[in-house]
């Protein structure tokens, strides 16, 4: 039987929804027992959240001051030790998981399956290559631990349950390096929903025209409770910071509603939104490629349409 260790991702004492998405992938491995591992300085609040994820048998915690920040060099030796006895280690395929999981795999001397989109069997998975332009089926060696990162956009977050799985503190005897040190994290504005996990996203592109004009995107997003994203063109033009970039080289997201405003729809952008539930495109160019994949398209001037949308909403 499969025993899966899911590594919790968290920030500021809160569990990231990528963790519950990784649990969904673990649930897809038939008959698996699923434990979640929380590595932090203060583990209690995070562990309590993880214990309520449907499908989780146990939450294991390692509380150490060194785990205050997610440094791969510090976390990987602990995860590699904790992985003993598990058939699989699943980590969200976010910048956190992409950083730490390969380090764990190398310590275990095994390959890693990156960006799991679907679980076919306990050792067979589907994953994207060439920026999602091809999907491959890969088979991992059943005699080794499977280390995999789970593509958040492909998995719904496992639901919360009323009862809680037991929480157990682990003592891990691993020498931790001091050669890598956290200095600071400069976060974007945090009063809006997180782009990676938001159910609604409003994105602006080059058509928005300037940093100042981008206010209209932010205002509209706030009006409907959406996160704000941007195309690479808008980021490169300096309208918004790079952490808002959606696409192959930015964030790959799967909100229920995605509104692309003033975005033409370059392949690299479309790669990032392929799994969105409903895509809306607003663009003054009726020939823009974004309309080829949009569920609803509206041709016109965004500066005229957005106020009209706001009016239609009120």
């Amino acid at each position, binding site marked *: 039987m499969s025993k899966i260790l899911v590594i919790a991702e968290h920030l500021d004492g809160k569990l990231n929804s990528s963790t519950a998405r990784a649990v969904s992938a673990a649930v897809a491995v038939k008959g698996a027992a699923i434990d979640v591992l929380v590595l932090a300085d203060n583990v209690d609040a995070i562990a309590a959240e993880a214990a309520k994820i449907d499908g989780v048998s146990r939450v294991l915690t390692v509380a150490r001051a060194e785990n205050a920040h997610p440094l*791969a060099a510090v976390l*990987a030796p602990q995860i590699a030790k904790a992985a003993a006895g598990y058939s699989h280690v699943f980590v969200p395929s976010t*910048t*956190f998981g*992409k*950083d730490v999981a*390969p*380090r*764990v*795999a*190398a310590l275990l001397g095994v*390959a*890693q399956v*990156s960006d799991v989109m679907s679980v076919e069997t306990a050792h067979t998975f589907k994953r994207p*290559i*060439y*920026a999602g*332009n*091809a*999907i*491959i*089926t*890969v*088979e*991992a*060696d059943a005699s080794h631990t499977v280390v995999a990162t789970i593509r958040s956009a492909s998995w719904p977050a496992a639901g919360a349950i009323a009862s809680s799985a037991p929480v157990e503190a682990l003592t891990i005897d691993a020498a931790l*390096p001091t*050669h890598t*040190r*956290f*200095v*600071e*994290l*400069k*976060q*974007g504005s945090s009063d809006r929903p997180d782009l*990676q996990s938001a159910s*609604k996203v409003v994105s602006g592109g080059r058509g928005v025209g300037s940093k100042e004009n981008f206010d209209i995107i932010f205002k509209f997003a706030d009006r409907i409770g959406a996160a704000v994203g941007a195309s690479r063109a808008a980021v490169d033009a300096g309208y918004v910071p790079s*952490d808002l970039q959606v696409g192959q*080289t930015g*964030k790959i997201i799967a909100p*229920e*509603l995605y509104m692309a405003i003033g975005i033409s729809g370059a392949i690299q952008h479309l790669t990032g939104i*392929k799994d969105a539930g*409903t*895509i*809306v495109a607003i663009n003054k160019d009726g020939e823009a490629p974004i*309309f*080829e*994949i*949009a*569920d*609803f398209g*509206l*041709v016109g001037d965004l500066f005229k*349409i957005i106020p*009209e*949308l706001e009016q*239609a*909403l009120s």
Partner: protein
Amino acid sequence: MKILVGYKRVVDYNVRIQVKPDGSGVVTDGVKLSANPFDDIALEEALRLREKGVAEEVIVVGIGPTDLTAHLRNGLAMGANRAIHVVTGDAVQPLTAARVFLKLIEKEQPELVILGKQAIDDDANQTGQMLAALWDRPQATFASKVEIADGKATVTREVDAGLEVIEAELPAVITTDLRLNEPRFIKLPDIMKAKSKPIDTIELGSLGVEAHDHLKTTHYAAPAKRSKGVMVKDAAELVAALKQKGLL
């Protein structure tokens, strides 16, 4: 300081990838090949560190078949001092690539290894992290700014939550993100100059690293397509449609 740079050859990013109808792979015959864009950024960063006087020597490393030489010449034309070509006819997976780099590190003793955060063919995003683990040294992945001073690298990393700054004692592995720099173009005289720069050739087998497939790819498929939806005539119709779907 000596810097090793990974320099992989991949299908050019402008090529529209096509999956073979029998699911055995993607079409690569006659397709344009180029340097992995993240590796060009890695090389550019190394060259800038040399130009600033932080580094003395930049070595590009390629793993692949005998005809990879022409690709490595591009790296030399861009400005690398010399190249190492690890020759193998087999496709190399990240763990094998990391083991190869470790062998080269033992020989060359670099203080910095700069790799692309991922190659745009397999999109694995693993080699740098795996190498750092095997080498037991720091990793600074997804770098958008690198400063080297006092035996350490201060690296700004592009993470989902924003920008994270970490300090890594050298030697260390850095992997590049898109915004670290804009790679220079190769000039014609540099192509001529590159012809006389040395390329060391090493058979992969002679490094004591076995290039076996840790993961087996059994099938290739084209992604599911989204179909074109409907055009609405105005904002009111759009809002009504989204409300009907329970999205607003």
